[in-house]
């Protein structure tokens, strides 16, 4: 071949080489690359048949990438060992050329070209061209691997960002208190998605008994999932229930894999978020409940404020004082002094079983019925019976009222009284003795029968005193759980302390109780009504 022809031909092949590289650089897989490359070779050697094969670094077996029907596998396998392990070896035969090129990842590409004779001397240029082309393949292969690695790296980095982002989002979503779906269901879905698990389950057991099972996907049952090879799990205990999260079979494009450390960390983190969410929900519910109780108490306090007397009516020839100190914001105690149309006065002290709104409403009922019956001049015994009936119907089974009701005729000092299951009232006589008023009947509202009440009569002489009270006074306790009554019996206190103003007696009584109880919180309402006949 002439020098000029050779130069022209090589120049044309180099130009073709550059164009071919651009084409090869788009290949995404080795098979694609081989297919493209075979096309380039066929373009350079029209009519030539080409086989392209690949062999692993430690394998003896050639595998076809492109099969052009030239028995490439047999020919390459027949090459001497040193020719198939060198960087690039060319072996010419009368019917073609075998080229083996070691690739960047230590595997081998083998090309077998069966070409038609093109005249004397043409073989040398062809072999040179083929060497260049097989290098081109290696370079394109390196480029393809580089691009693939770069893509995988970007994908992997994006996936890490996705995992972190989803972890944050899931934390926010499971902590939403108005979330319709259960936090454990959301966390399970996210955990499966972020770890590429094919399925998962959350099992909630309460004291060893399964109370809830959530499967992902929903149509996978836990019984089938337990047979899977690869799994990770985590659990926590909340409110005597164990929440166990389990994931199965990590997916990949090449089959199922064992989970890795990151997967376990993600599952642990998501389960912790559910745990925190459940705790927050519990605390939120507690706060709401407390808020509701406080609102109830405020309503009840408002009701009671309207019922308890702002001041007691003056009674000619008498001095009267009363007090009510609720133990919480609202108590169930009641007292009043009600002037009647016939000139008498009704003195009342009552104690409703319970506290809060129900107790306040019942006190309200008592106040309304009592006022109505007193207005109608109902005899005291009959009044007690009627109150028992109406309170019984107005209250629940566990609610009743103990009450002491006395009708005072101011001019004579006569008192008619009924004790409906309440503490006895005391009359301090001028001879320093204390007389108990205890006749009556059962607590109001306790039994829905026409229970017979009895009243009793006594007379307060000038200088004598009457004390009505609720059990919050004798049962006031100190830090050693001793009762006020045991240290200061009320009857004794009443006998020895006889100030000339009712207000002073009440003030001193409360002072004594406060000193006795010290820092111990008040356990019950304190109510007292003190009447002094001048």
């Amino acid at each position, binding site marked *: 071949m002439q020098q000029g022809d050779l130069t022209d031909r090589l120049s044309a092949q180099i130009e073709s080489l550059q164009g071919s590289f651009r084409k090869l650089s788009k290949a995404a897989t080795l098979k694609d690359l081989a297919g493209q490359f075979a096309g380039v070779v066929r373009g350079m050697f029209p009519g030539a048949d080409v086989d392209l094969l690949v062999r692993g670094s430690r394998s003896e077996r050639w595998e076809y990438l492109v099969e052009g029907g030239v028995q490439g596998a047999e020919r390459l396998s027949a090459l001497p060992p040193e020719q198939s392990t060198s960087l690039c070896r060319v072996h010419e035969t009368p019917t073609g050329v075998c080229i083996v090129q070691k690739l960047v990842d230590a595997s081998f590409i083998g090309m077998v070209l069966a070409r038609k004779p093109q005249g004397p001397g043409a073989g040398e240029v062809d072999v040179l061209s083929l060497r260049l082309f097989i290098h081109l393949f290696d370079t394109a292969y390196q480029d393809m691997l580089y691009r693939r690695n770069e893509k995988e790296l970007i994908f992997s980095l994006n996936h890490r960002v*996705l995992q972190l982002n989803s972890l944050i989002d899931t934390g926010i979503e499971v902590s939403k208190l108005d979330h319709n779906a259960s936090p454990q269901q959301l966390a399970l879905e996210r955990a499966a998605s972020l770890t590429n698990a094919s399925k998962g389950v959350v099992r909630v057991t309460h004291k060893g008994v399964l109370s809830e099972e959530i499967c992902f996907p929903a149509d996978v049952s836990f019984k089938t999932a337990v047979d899977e090879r690869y799994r990770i799990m985590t659990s926590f205990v909340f409110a005597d229930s164990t929440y166990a999260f389990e994931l199965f079979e990590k997916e990949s494009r090449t089959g199922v894999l064992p989970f890795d450390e990151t997967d376990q960390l993600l599952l642990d983190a998501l389960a912790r978020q559910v745990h925190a969410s459940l705790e927050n929900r519990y605390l939120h519910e507690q706060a709401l409940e407390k808020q509701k109780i406080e609102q109830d108490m405020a309503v009840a306090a408002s009701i009671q404020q309207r019922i308890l007397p702002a001041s007691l009516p003056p009674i000619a020839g008498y001095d009267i004082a009363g007090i009510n100190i609720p133990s919480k914001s609202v108590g169930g105690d009641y007292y009043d002094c009600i002037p009647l149309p016939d000139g008498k006065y009704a003195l009342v002290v009552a104690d409703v079983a319970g506290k809060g709104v129900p107790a306040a409403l019942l006190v309200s009922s008592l106040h309304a019925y009592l006022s109505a019956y007193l207005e109608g001049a109902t005899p005291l015994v009959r009044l007690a019976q009627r109150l028992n009936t109406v309170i019984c119907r107005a209250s629940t089974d566990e609610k009743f009222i103990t009450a002491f009701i006395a009708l005072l005729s101011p001019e004579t000092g006569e008192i008619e009284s009924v004790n409906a299951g309440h503490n006895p009232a005391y009359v301090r006589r001028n001879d320093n003795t204390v007389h108990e008023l205890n006749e009556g009947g059962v607590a109001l509202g306790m039994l829905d029968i026409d229970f017979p009440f009895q009243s009793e009569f006594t007379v307060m002489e000038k200088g004598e005193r009457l004390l009505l009270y609720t059990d919050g006074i004798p049962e006031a306790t100190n830090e050693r759980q001793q009762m006020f009554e045991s240290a200061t019996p009320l009857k004794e206190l009443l006998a020895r302390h006889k100030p000339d103003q009712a207000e002073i007696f009440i003030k001193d009584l409360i002072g004594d109780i406060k000193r006795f109880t010290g820092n111990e919180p008040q356990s019950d309402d304190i109510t007292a009504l003190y009447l002094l006949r001048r």
Partner: protein
Amino acid sequence: MEQQFTLTSEVRDDHLIITTSGYVNNVGGEAIAAEFSRHFQNGIHRVIVNLAQSKVVNSIGMSFLIEIIEQLQDTDGKLIFTNLDPAVEKMLAIMGLFKFAGKEASVDDALKSFVGPQ
């Protein structure tokens, strides 16, 4: 709660509409890719993937979607996702799928966007 994967498809005016239901994982991704390939070989290069009933997608499922997008890029085709759950939309965005694929609220919107300027 998410079910196991199923899909349906239809061709409307040379647009392939794939509607999925359930977890888009390895199985789901493979099924979408197979359905796409079947129509891609017949010259369909405009694809809509309706994920209304798929609220959970994993990265293996996404890798199949990325391959479809790459194949369409080589042929000046396009893929548009529709009816995306916000969590899925965020996942696809973080993984960079919307750099090369579109998203629309509904299949009808996607069809209109194919008709309009690309």
